[in-house]
């Protein structure tokens, strides 16, 4: 009892929480990539080196083969494999990595090659932890040796007995001191606080003048607004490095995720159906720089191939549409409650308002679940997806609701007119 009390007192006296962080290093990388004209979700499972890397690719409508390679930073590919991605659903394969550090996963469909960055982090075991575990393990081993020796004549038994005493002393000392030992610095090179990183500039170019009805390769170059150097510190936020919204003159939305081909260089291929001005919005998040929406536009020549028809894969219910009042906007995708989370969310809503002054991307979150967020293989979310938004000014707004079902992205688009606030507030 006295020992118990002493131990308790020691812990209470030292006080500080034992924060030695030696859990698993790194996490799965889940990133959306629009390769060619197909939307893929690429999952790189947490990995240790040297060892296998589990890679999963989810198809969202278009199938086909891919060549996958993993390359260390500035090195040559260590392994390569072919993967047949189904039109809808998951395909998985294994590659292997041989060292810690920055890596890239290359996905090549024969025309374009996406390079998804991921990290292979080394687990740092603090010295006290080695001493504590090692001490107890050594005590166990010595005990195992000592027990049979103890049943024999001779002094030899005192060697393992001494071993037990020493290793237990080491283990208990290390264990008791551990709360006071600061955790080793984490491997992350970037601070997770806002360090005031300058915003990124975006330059959009195309291969030749875009013409309606013809596939166009769009190149997005993100440059640091301070130094002009390529921005290569984009974080995976909301399941992608870059969310690009392309809105046609007639109000058709393409929500795509340009593939990363090099530092600060992202590409996406799309086929404009209409002639006229396309509005672009790219959402990015720089490490330590917060998230940012960068806008651009694209002029498409030629003649309109087909006029846009509003995608109506469900209905929309709204409350009173008055400016400056929060309103609930509910998209009802109909059918069974089997929506899947896309980009970690059970629903997305894009709102573009009068003169494109309002440009918003909202989410309906998946409810918190024990053991982390479910991935998109979980088809269990309600067909009705609610959002709340406050329209800041009266006028005409375009709304696009998106959700995933059967691994396909469903879109409901609508137009609402917001009345002026009647001065009630």
């Amino acid at each position, binding site marked *: 009892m006295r020992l118990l009390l002493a*131990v*308790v007192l020691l*812990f*209470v006296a030292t*006080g*500080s*929480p*034992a*924060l*030695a962080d*030696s*859990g*698993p290093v790194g996490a799965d990388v889940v990133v959306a990539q629009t390769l060619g004209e197909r939307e893929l979700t690429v999952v790189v499972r947490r990995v*240790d080196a040297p060892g296998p890397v589990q890679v999963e690719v989810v198809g969202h409508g278009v199938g086909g083969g891919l060549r996958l390679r993993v390359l260390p930073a500035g090195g040559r590919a260590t392994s390569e494999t072919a993967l047949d991605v189904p039109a809808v659903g998951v395909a998985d394969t294994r590659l292997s990595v041989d060292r810690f550090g920055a890596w890239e996963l290359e996905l090549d469909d024969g025309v374009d090659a996406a390079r998804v960055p991921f990290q292979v982090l080394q*687990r740092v*075991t603090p010295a006290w*932890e080695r001493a*504590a*575990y090692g001490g*107890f*393990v050594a*005590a*166990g*081993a010595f*005990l*195992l040796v*000592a*027990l*049979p020796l*103890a*049943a*024999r*004549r001779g002094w030899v*038994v005192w060697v393992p*007995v001494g071993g*037990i005493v020493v290793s*237990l002393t080491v*283990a*208990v000392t290390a*264990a*008791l001191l*551990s*709360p006071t030992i600061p955790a080793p610095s984490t491997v992350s090179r970037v601070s997770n606080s806002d360090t005031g990183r300058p915003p990124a500039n975006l330059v959009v170019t195309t291969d030749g003048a875009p013409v309606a009805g013809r596939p166009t390769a769009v190149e997005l170059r993100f440059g640091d607004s301070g130094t002009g150097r390529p921005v290569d510190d984009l974080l995976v936020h909301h399941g992608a490095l870059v969310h690009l919204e392309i809105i046609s003159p007639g109000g058709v939305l393409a929500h795509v995720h340009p593939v990363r081909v090099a530092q600060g260089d992202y590409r996406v291929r799309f086929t404009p159906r209409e002639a006229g001005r396309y509005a672009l919005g790219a959402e990015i998040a720089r490490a330590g720089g917060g998230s940012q929406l960068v806008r651009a536009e694209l002029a498409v020549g030629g003649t309109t191939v087909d006029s846009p028809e509003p995608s109506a894969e469900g209905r929309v219910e709204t409350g009173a549409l008055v400016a400056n009042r929060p309103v609930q906007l509910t998209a009802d995708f109909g059918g069974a409650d089997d929506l899947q989370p896309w980009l970690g969310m059970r629903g997305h809503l894009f709102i573009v308002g009068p003169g494109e002054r309002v440009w918003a991307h909202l989410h309906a979150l998946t409810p918190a679940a024990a053991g982390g967020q479910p991935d998109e293989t979980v088809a269990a979310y309600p067909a009705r997806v609610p959002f709340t938004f406050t329209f800041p000014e009266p006028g005409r707004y375009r709304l696009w609701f998106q959700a995933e079902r059967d691994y396909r992205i469903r879109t409901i688009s609508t137009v609402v007119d917001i009345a002026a606030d009647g001065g009630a507030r």
Partner: protein
Amino acid sequence: MAITASRARGLPAAVVLLTGTVFSLIGLTWDVQWHSDVGPDTFFTLPHLFLYAGSAISGLAALTAVLATTAAHRAGAVPDPSLGGPPIRVFGRAFTAPLGYLVAGCGAASFLLYGLWDQWWHGLYGFDAVIDSPPHIGLLLSISATLVGTVVVFGAADEHRWGRIGALVSLAVLGAFDTVIVFAFKSLNGQVNAMHVAMAALMVLVLACATAFTRYGGVLMALGLAVIQAVTWWFSPWASRVYAEAVGLPMRDYAGQEPQLPALIPMSLVVVALLVHPLLTSRSRWAAPLAGAIAGGLLAGLQRPQSSWVFDGPLPPLQRVLLTALVGAVVGLVAAPAGRRFGRMLRLAGDRTPERN
């Protein structure tokens, strides 16, 4: 040999051994509660230290007892089985070690060695991983081995009152501790609640063992288990809260006052033990299996109402409860005769000439 001299001779080592296992039990109920109410985990939370210290203490006690036996042997004494159980030859040598201490010591050593696997596992899957992970089950089974050794050590001294009491106490500690092993059966839950069946099997086993070991052993052991349940019921949530405050960690939003591990121990055990006592002590051939079936059925069937009551949850369909009770009865049918045999073996552990029985 003078009776008075031998009376208390094995007592100190046995008590230290039992203390170690009680440390393990305290560490376990506290740790399970900590994981449920607070969560964040490092290797050296205080409950973990209790678990490790428990095995270290048991291991040292066992080793000391083996050393003492060898020293006595060298001094010319005849091995006394009442000091830790029948002598077992080690590596075919002429020198022997008492069974109880050998089992307890090996359990402690194996626990300490399993720590390495556990560290690797946590490195891969993270802290706050599930309780029924393979290395955890290995660790817990190792402690169980130490507990079995402790039961043997006290059982061998059944000619003394301290031996009989100690054996029942350590059986109760074994029963309380092994409720956690029952977690491993969770993945088998279906129409039949495998966890509840496993719990019934465990309880019938220790009940029958205690009854066969000494007079009213089953009832006394059940009372002991009830005391452990009552104490840990209060202790584990309290200790988790106090420790969380001391290290500055917040309690989880949904942390209730319900103790996790003690809530698993069947509350009906004392009543069930009294109910089947006449059958378990009967000499009739079918009495023990019948007693096991009744006890197993009751214990398995009452587990779910108990947890619904403790955690304020809904009752499952009656059909599933009855099905679980039925399977519990079948398992109890087998467990009771097995437990009775264990009890008789335990009675023989301290005899100089086991052959005569």
